[in-house]
């Protein structure tokens, strides 16, 4: 099966549960990928056939590796143990990437939504939602803000995903509690990475996207929390600050250069 045939198979399988999605156009490969992604995004965490997983894994492996994959060796430390890298976090081949999750914990369920939770789940594969569902069911309640949970990363080039829910900023703005909860998200991820004896971890800019945390303040908290954690626990973790927007790149460059 080539990629096109795999996509046809996957879409066909998923459409059986979602007849109404048949209206989507599938003339080009990009349109097929968009439909496949949408169908995976809205899919409830229900059991799936082994054959589907096999075809999906083959498709995702190739799709994920068509891009330039970056590992820690490709990066230069900006400070001891600290790295700054701009790009799509799903292109990293490292021990763990951090996902900015929400309290439902099942991954973004909006079709083709442009958020990190969506692309991580899409490129990891449907198994990720199934594992998250097991974790959250075992917990018996929604995921609190500022904690962290680890899962496999499935088809992503990295080994693990660490999921944390950052604070949401509404019209009342940033508050001391929300600042502390953001710090807590970073701290919980680092502690979990060390508990699993990982060598490196990449953080996205937690809470800054959909959750509206001001970028500058979020970056200050991120760097301060990581720096203090490494100093206080003598952790050997190598930490990548992964930014996506130019604005965040500027902010982190300035902050990390200043601390030298």
């Amino acid at each position, binding site marked *: 099966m080539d990629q096109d045939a795999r996509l046809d198979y996957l879409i066909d399988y998923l459409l059986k549960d979602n007849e109404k999605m048949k209206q989507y156009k599938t003339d080009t490969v990009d349109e097929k990928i968009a439909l496949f992604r949408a169908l995976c995004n809205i899919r409830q965490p229900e059991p799936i056939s082994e054959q589907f997983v096999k075809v999906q894994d083959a498709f995702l492996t190739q799709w994920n590796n068509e891009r330039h994959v970056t590992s820690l060796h490709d990066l230069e430390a900006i400070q001891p143990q600290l790295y700054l890298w701009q790009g799509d976090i799903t292109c990293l081949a490292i021990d763990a990437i951090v996902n900015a999750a929400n*309290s439902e914990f099942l991954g973004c369920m909006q079709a083709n939504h442009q958020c990190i939770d969506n692309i991580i789940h899409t490129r990891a594969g449907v198994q990720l939602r199934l594992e998250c569902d097991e974790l959250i069911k075992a917990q018996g*309640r*929604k*995921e*609190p*803000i*500022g*904690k962290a949970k680890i899962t496999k990363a499935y088809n992503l080039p990295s080994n693990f995903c660490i999921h944390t*829910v950052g*604070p*949401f900023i*509404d019209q*009342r703005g940033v*508050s*001391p*509690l*929300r600042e*502390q*909860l953001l710090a807590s998200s970073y701290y919980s991820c680092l502690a979990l990475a060390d508990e699993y004896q990982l060598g490196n971890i990449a953080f996205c800019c937690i809470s800054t996207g959909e959750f509206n945390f001001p970028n500058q303040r979020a970056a200050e908290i991120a760097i301060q929390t990581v720096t203090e954690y490494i100093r206080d626990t003598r952790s050997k973790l190598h930490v990548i600050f992964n930014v996506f927007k130019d604005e965040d790149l500027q902010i982190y460059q300035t902050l990390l250069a200043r601390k030298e």
Partner: protein
Amino acid sequence: MKKRGNFLFIEKNDDVYTLSMTPELQDDIGTVGFVEYMNEDTLNVDDTIANIEASKTVIDLASPLAGKIVGRNEVAISEPTLLNSAKTEENWVVKLTNVDEEAFNLLEEA
């Protein structure tokens, strides 16, 4: 004497320390819809006292002090919005004993 820590008030009456919601915490989390207490009776600093699901957030309340739980606001389980009340007799969370008075004195004044 009244202190604050981890976004909670701590009021000392003899050997009993009552932890209750601060207005800041109430504003940050929104209307409380669900409260679940942890089963352990002994708390260390920063241990979770209760899980709260509110309109704006899902949060674990962390204890500012170590101690032994001698009372929980059980009414708040069936009536979670009590935790949004302005009155301490309604918005209290737990009562602790065996608290290190020195640790209490070191907390920020309320």
